[in-house]
């Protein structure tokens, strides 16, 4: 049995009438790269603030690396690193001053833990006298990550580190996380980008304060309950509208250059193609394909 780094049990959180988290339960293993995947408003940030002791749940319990977020928050805060979604370093202090400050708060020094941040920090070290507020987006992110790691946390929380970040920088960021994971750090990351789920050991798919599914990305994809097809035609807009008129279609939606399509039980793709051709849809191409996390997420959203 693997050691648990985080145990979340029946956690709920309300803001007035708004239910942010509804009876969430989940565990994360030590050394795991765990992703909370969901759109804005699914409750990811509330959960991150609860796990880092910055917000109390209305009910339920959370234990992080042996410390209860409620009673043991002083111990807990020494052990966790937290990078919030919004840049929250001191804009009017330099790169180096920010890092020194965070090291100082945790009674350590940059020198003592430099090895932990070296790979990341050396990329921004040439700008160490620049004010943090004057850094580009990518550099701010590297500084924030360095500051979250400088006190040698056992668990690292990254709340939407890649939101609004371009595809190349996102890829590089995940490569950095893979390196940190090798050192045994437990990493909890949230993201609205479904494709990033594949880069995690396990993920929780979240929607409207609930967890739709918790599993490894491979298992989630394997458990997609239907045969999925890709379909395209000369005029994709016409095809999209035409498919909505068929009773035999369970779901059809845009997906990259194709539409993805699921048929209701007992229907054949060849019959559908025939009907589409009769409706004047030209150059139809179809293929049997495997589902992606995004297909699974949409299927789960519709079920719930």
């Amino acid at each position, binding site marked *: 049995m693997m050691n648990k780094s985080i145990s979340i049990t029946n956690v709920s959180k309300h803001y007035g009438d708004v239910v942010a988290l509804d009876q969430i339960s989940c565990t994360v293993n030590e050394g795991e790269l765990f992703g909370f995947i969901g*759109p804005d408003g699914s409750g990811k940030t509330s959960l991150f603030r609860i796990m880092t002791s910055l917000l109390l749940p209305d009910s339920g319990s959370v234990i992080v690396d042996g410390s209860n977020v409620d009673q043991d928050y002083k111990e807990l805060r020494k052990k966790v690193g937290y990078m919030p979604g919004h840049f929250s370093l001191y804009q009017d202090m330099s790169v180096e001053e920010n890092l020194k400050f965070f090291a100082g708060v945790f009674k350590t020094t940059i020198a003592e833990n430099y090895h932990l941040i070296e790979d990341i920090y050396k990329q921004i070290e040439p700008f160490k006298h620049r004010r943090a507020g004057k850094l580009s987006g990518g550099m701010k992110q590297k500084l924030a990550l360095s500051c979250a790691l400088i006190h040698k946390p056992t668990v690292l929380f990254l709340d939407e580190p890649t939101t609004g970040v371009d595809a*190349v920088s996102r890829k590089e960021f995940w490569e950095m996380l893979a390196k940190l994971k090798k050192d045994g750090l437990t990493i909890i990351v949230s993201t609205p980008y479904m494709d990033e789920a594949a880069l995690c050991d396990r993920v929780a798919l979240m*929607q409207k304060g609930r967890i739709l599914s918790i599993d490894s990305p491979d298992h989630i994809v394997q458990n997609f309950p239907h045969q999925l097809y890709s379909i395209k035609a000369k005029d994709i*807009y016409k095809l999209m509208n035409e498919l909505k008129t068929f009773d035999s279609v369970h779901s059809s939606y845009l997906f990259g250059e194709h539409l993805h399509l699921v048929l209701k039980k007992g229907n054949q793709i060849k019959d559908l193609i025939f009907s589409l051709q009769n409706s004047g849809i030209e150059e139809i191409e179809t293929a049997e394909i495997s589902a992606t996390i995004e297909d699974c997420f949409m299927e789960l*959203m519709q079920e719930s």
Partner: protein
Amino acid sequence: MKVAVSVTNLVKTFGSFVANDNLNFEVYKGEIFGFLGANGAGKTTAIKILCGLQRPTSGEVKVAGFDIYKQTELIKKNIGYMSQKFSLYDDLTIQENIRFYGGIYGLSNEEIKSKTEQYIRELELEEYVKSMVAALPLGIKQKLAFSVAVIHSPQIVFLDEPTSGVDPITRRQFWEMIYAEANKGRTIFVTTHYMDEAEYCHRVSIMVDGIIEALDTPTQLKKTFKAESMEEVFIQLARKSTRVD
């Protein structure tokens, strides 16, 4: 094909920094044009210029047939704009937002009333009519923002990362709205970090360090760069960036 936007030798510098380095492209009427680039590539600067909010250093730009130097007010009347960061006023209700934007663009009270009814019906907003926009789920807010951005039937609508953080089902409903508008002949100029959305565009340009490195249909771009997806095309090109970021 009728040209909606034409850009010739557009240059924009800030001091010694070249944000837009000799851009040349055209966008056609009814086209969904994806304007892609890494963070810091110069997209925002170019969009500000096209919307008449900033003057280029040099070059010729025409938007909806109007000159970017002399006719910026006419441009503003003939374009729509929305982004993730700024779209609707959070502390106004749905109806107040529609009335505000309708009023700004000079719609009559009758028109505003009928647009309000139309949007509430089409977007199924009945249960939210009395709530502040701040209380709307992000996806619904963005769909409403898009409707409001075309309330004055602009020739061109600029969408700056309109779907960031939106759930996958609503994101697709949003794109269906985009297709429907383009099908009516409206030109859509859109930026996104979702590479699957790049595939939904008729043509895509990719900017790297202030230069347009590639511009073509998604199918042709994938052929040219021997790539399986637009994400691969984007990564191949954006990796060339030498700007510090």
